[in-house]
């Protein structure tokens, strides 16, 4: 082989490896992004209610170790001292406790109303309506010491504009089940 052939050979080797490195970048860059972002994505999924599980009317769904069922969604029209064009809405749930470790499973319990545009309402403290003794909110149910097999009656009160009462649906999110959350359908859906 002449000296020129040798030079050409080494040139070819260099070109081949340069090409291989560039192709490898196609794999390495997404891999780096994935490794770097892994913790952030885990935190994002653990803190946000992103994926809805639809629950048909009257159906009971196993969620957070217990069986959840929506029993009623109604508005309390005609109340005074409220902001204009707003109406209090009550969402009632009947929950059959399965796993009684509610302090762990129901931590971060968030009951919301979601409308057709995706806007979310959380329970309000501006309105208090009298309820019978065994009805409680989700957060107080966590510490109620319920045992497996008990049925809890939960009620949350919201304040929503009058024009969304047709499209709002109740939803429940728990820290143990995030990013999934329950979206209850009404009878007319």
């Amino acid at each position, binding site marked *: 082989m002449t000296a020129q052939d040798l030079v050409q050979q080494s040139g070819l080797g260099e070109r081949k490896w340069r090409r291989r490195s560039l192709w490898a970048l196609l794999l390495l860059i997404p891999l780096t992004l994935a490794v770097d972002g892994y913790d952030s994505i885990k935190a994002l999924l653990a803190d946000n209610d992103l994926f809805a599980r639809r629950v048909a009317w009257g159906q009971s769904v196993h969620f957070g170790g217990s069986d959840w069922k929506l029993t009623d969604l109604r508005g309390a029209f005609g109340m005074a001292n409220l902001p204009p064009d707003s109406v209090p809405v009550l969402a009632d749930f009947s929950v059959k406790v399965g796993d009684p470790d509610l302090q762990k499973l129901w931590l971060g319990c968030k009951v919301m109303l979601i409308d057709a545009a995706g*806007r979310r309402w959380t329970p309000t403290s501006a309105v208090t309506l009298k309820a019978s003794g065994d009805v409680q909110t989700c957060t107080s149910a966590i510490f109620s010491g319920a045992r497996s097999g008990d049925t809890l009656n939960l009620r949350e009160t919201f*304040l*929503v504009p009058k024009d*969304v009462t047709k499209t709002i649906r109740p939803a429940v999110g728990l820290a143990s089940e995030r990013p999934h959350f329950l979206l209850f359908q009404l009878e007319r859906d």
Partner: protein
Amino acid sequence: MMRKTANIVLLLVAVAFCYGLQMSKPHYGDLIGPIPARGKMGETIVGRNFEARAEKVAFARNLKVDRFGETKILTTGGVWAVVTVEFAARAQSTSVAVASWRGPTGLAYDQTERMSFADGLLPVAIDPGLPKKARLVFELRPDEASNATLLISEKLMSALDSQAEISLGPVATASDGLPASTVDTLDMSQPI
């Protein structure tokens, strides 16, 4: 010879470029700071999750508050500024908790902590579709009242989240140094 000078020139250009990059990099505090949403008084400023509209500013020498059934007069060494702002949430129920008054010289006055029991102060809980009014109360030097900016955000650590910056415009000053519209006592127990 040409090669050498070309290399040196390239090196100098690279040095100048890198120096320019280093000098023009924003301060870390600005990089992770709140994202401003600017506007004037009377305009609705749209943030990421809340909207704010400053309606009016009132100045007073004293404030009258009802505290546990007793009336208290709050005095100040400067002047009281009470801004009425209407808030609305956009996509989710949230609460607006932090507001400060930035005077024309850059001094930042936080909300007063002397009136935690009065009506309409921050934090205010807002729901989508239901606008709500609140009163922001500040205690300032009279020379910081004109051409000030109101900075409002949901949380104290609003890194990379919206902060409403509302320019409150010029305020006429009277001969005693206080704003011309200063009243003697403003009754905070009146509805907003």
